[in-house]
């Protein structure tokens, strides 16, 4: 029997003393995962791998690929996908939902405050110099009144679970969080290539995301507009998230525009069409805020539209997310979110932060420099797993290099303990092995706050690795939230998941 034909089962799977999302410490499936584990254990030899291969082919055909750097022969790779879905029980999901709603409310109040009265700075809850020196704090946004009072309409918050399974917030992404298209496509290919596993578990559907996004965007339109034109603004096809921009525009049935397709005339924004200029009322911008208007922010930007901010201030166009939200992405500001929740809402954070050392504080910096080999050090404004040191996996030289950077620019660094991230069974070389995962749920803040059940589960495919970013060897998984009685469940015959 060839390796490919060996049945893949949980028989020899070991959690290796890590917290596993679907197998408990005694090696038994957690209750919500039991039907799934059963189905996988019963599959004939080779079946799981065949399905995994079929899914990979689907993704390739759909062109959800990236070009391999330095390869001129046109080879393209898909984002790695693992077929074993992550399962989130309904109780845990309720906890996560409540925590995220609370957090997004507080962040929204914070943004409105710092761009207006700055009470939280006056009361010394958040240090004034931290905000005023943040490159992401945009002075032109002071006094802005975003339509309907919402600053961050689309948020992706990174969550992790520790060795005991407790949930923590690792990072907030309030500028232009990406990845939701992978969530929808992962589900679509799973439904198409592995329909029978959905029958065993009651999984909440996610295919209404584009509709919810569209409703939210429409709600933002200026009052005088009866039938608003919504557009998605992309930096263009060479942006790494271009596929997602195109996908969302397609799913919502709205135009995907680039900066060069737009122009400002007499206080309104127009797109250039074959019938001449057509007014645009709502822009879901996937261009970073400092690039959206060269007249106000970066003058060298060719991705934005000159005069856009002026139209925005006049209330003649809505932008989602509002410009200026990036300041809440700052990893030092992150450390103060539990204080914001206390300050604005008089509540304790439902989902705590990971313990964070702020290098600007003398005590914290001293501790960080002494324990750099045990900590994860992060730059305040980098993403994608860059600008980061994972102490236990680093060399002495790398540690010295980071220690140097911290001493030179303490404001720009935080450190956190190296957490033992939870793991998920993942297909590796024809059998199942545990790999570390995180979770990025997507939150839409319109009239109400709505959270897509599940989100993007990213998995670090390298053995022992804690870095889940796709640019650094990470893959993704379908993520299931188990339905409670009365909630709708996935219909495998419903083809509206966004792929043909």
């Amino acid at each position, binding site marked *: 029997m060839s390796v490919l034909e060996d049945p893949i089962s949980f028989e020899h799977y070991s959690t290796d003393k890590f917290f596993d999302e679907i197998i408990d410490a005694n090696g038994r499936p957690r209750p919500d995962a039991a039907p799934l584990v059963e189905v996988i254990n019963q599959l004939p030899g080779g079946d799981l791998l065949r399905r995994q291969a079929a899914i990979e082919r689907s993704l390739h055909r*759909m062109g959800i690929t990236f070009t391999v750097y330095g390869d001129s022969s046109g080879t393209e790779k898909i984002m790695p996908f693992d077929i074993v879905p992550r399962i989130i029980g309904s109780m845990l999901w309720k906890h996560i939902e409540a925590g995220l709603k609370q957090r997004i409310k507080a962040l929204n109040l914070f943004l409105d405050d710092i761009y207006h009265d700055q009470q939280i700075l006056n009361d010394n809850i958040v240090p004034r110099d931290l905000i005023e020196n943040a490159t992401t704090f945009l002075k032109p946004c002071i006094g802005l009144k975003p339509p309907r009072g919402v600053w961050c309409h689309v948020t992706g918050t990174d969550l992790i679970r520790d060795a005991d399974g407790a949930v923590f917030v690792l990072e907030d992404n309030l500028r232009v969080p990406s990845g939701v298209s992978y969530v929808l496509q992962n589900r679509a290919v799973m439904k198409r290539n592995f329909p029978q596993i959905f029958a065993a578990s009651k999984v909440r559907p996610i295919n209404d995301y584009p509709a919810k996004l569209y409703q939210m965007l429409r709600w933002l339109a200026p009052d005088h507009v009866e039938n608003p034109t919504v557009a998605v603004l992309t930096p263009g*096809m060479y942006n790494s998230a271009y596929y997602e921009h195109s996908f969302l525009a397609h799913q919502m049935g709205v135009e995907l525009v680039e900066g060069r397709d737009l122009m400002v005339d007499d206080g309104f924004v127009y797109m250039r069409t074959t019938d001449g200029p057509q007014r645009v009322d709502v822009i879901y911008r996937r261009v970073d805020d400092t690039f959206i208007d060269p007249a106000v922010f970066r003058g060298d930007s060719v991705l934005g539209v000159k005069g856009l901010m002026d139209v925005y201030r006049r209330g003649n166009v809505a932008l989602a997310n509002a410009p200026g939200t990036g300041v809440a992405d700052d990893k030092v500001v992150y450390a103060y979110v539990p204080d914001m929740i206390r300050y604005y809402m008089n509540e304790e954070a439902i989902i705590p932060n990971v313990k964070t050392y702020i290098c600007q504080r003398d005590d914290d910096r001293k501790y960080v420099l002494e324990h750099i080999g045990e900590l994860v050090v992060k730059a305040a404004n980098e993403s994608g797993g860059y600008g980061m040191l994972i102490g236990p996996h680093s060399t002495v030289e790398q540690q010295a290099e980071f220690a140097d950077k911290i001493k030179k620019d303490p404001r720009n660094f935080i450190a956190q303990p190296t957490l033992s991230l939870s793991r998920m069974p993942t297909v590796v070389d024809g059998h199942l092995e545990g790999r570390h995962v995180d979770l990025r749920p997507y939150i839409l803040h319109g009239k109400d706050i709505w959270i897509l059940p599940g989100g993007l589960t990213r998995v670090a495919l390298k053995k022992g690795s804690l870095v889940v970013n796709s640019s650094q060897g990470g893959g993704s998984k379908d993520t299931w939230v188990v339905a409670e009685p009365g909630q709708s469940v996935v219909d495998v015959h419903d083809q509206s998941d966004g792929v043909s």
Partner: protein
Amino acid sequence: MLSRVAESIYWMARYIERAENTARFVEVTLNLVLDQPMGVDEPWRPLINATGDDDIFNKSYKIADAESVMTFMAFDREYSNSITRGLHSARENARSIRESISSEAFEQINTLYHFVNTAGRSGQGIDSPTDFFDSIRRHCHLLTGILDATMSHDIGWHFANMGRLIERADKTSRILDVKYFTLLPTVESVGTAIDDLQWSSLLFSISGFEAYRRQHHMILTDKVVDFFLLHKQFPRSVRFCVDNAASSLQAISGGAAEGRHSTAARQLEALRIRLDSTDATSILRYGLHQFVDSVQGELNDVGNSLTEAYFLSPVA
């Protein structure tokens, strides 16, 4: 529709049609070579001459044999008119407007691009060329069907249709021009077996052999010229392409085009009248090459007017 999107859809369709026609060019030569008596000098050379890119070819290849010509025309990444490069451009255009075409259409373009790329890397395209070029044609037909059956026949679809038809009219006229030129010296041997074979393969290259036979039975020079240029119903004839491009343009402009929007319509109408008011005998008397040349020039003008009217939009 966004001007940029209209332009990309138009060029996406043109590049696909161009790739299909290149595959047809090669296929017809493959058939000819198989049918030809031994000892004909460099039977692949006329194909290179037809591209007008002899210089580029001669720089990279020593002789024009089956392998070098097929490699050049299908897989050469340095050659901007190769099938691979054309499909790459088609796919880049499609990628930049994926939200404006159906998912099925994008996937088909993507599949076709990867098919050609893989065949180039594995050498399979050259090993079984008949299958390979045949498959390209099939893939292109499939795409045309998908666009037709899964896209609203809205402005975007009409821009794609115009791109396809203008490119096709141009290529059909080129196929005739080139072959007519090489067949000219044998005009005295009309009616002999070899001549019939040559003209038949010419008809095959526009998938017109059966349609032609049903109508005319005998292969006659003027009838073939008429079939290529003036046939009202055959979908690859120049006349058919011009007629249908005009209809699509009318659908785009709503028929009420004024100013700069009306130029392309006027030019297409003039071309239509010209094709309507002539016949094969007059064309041959006037000079086929001169006639085809001026048709190509007019098609170019139409393309430029489209760019002017729809793709370059006003600056605020």
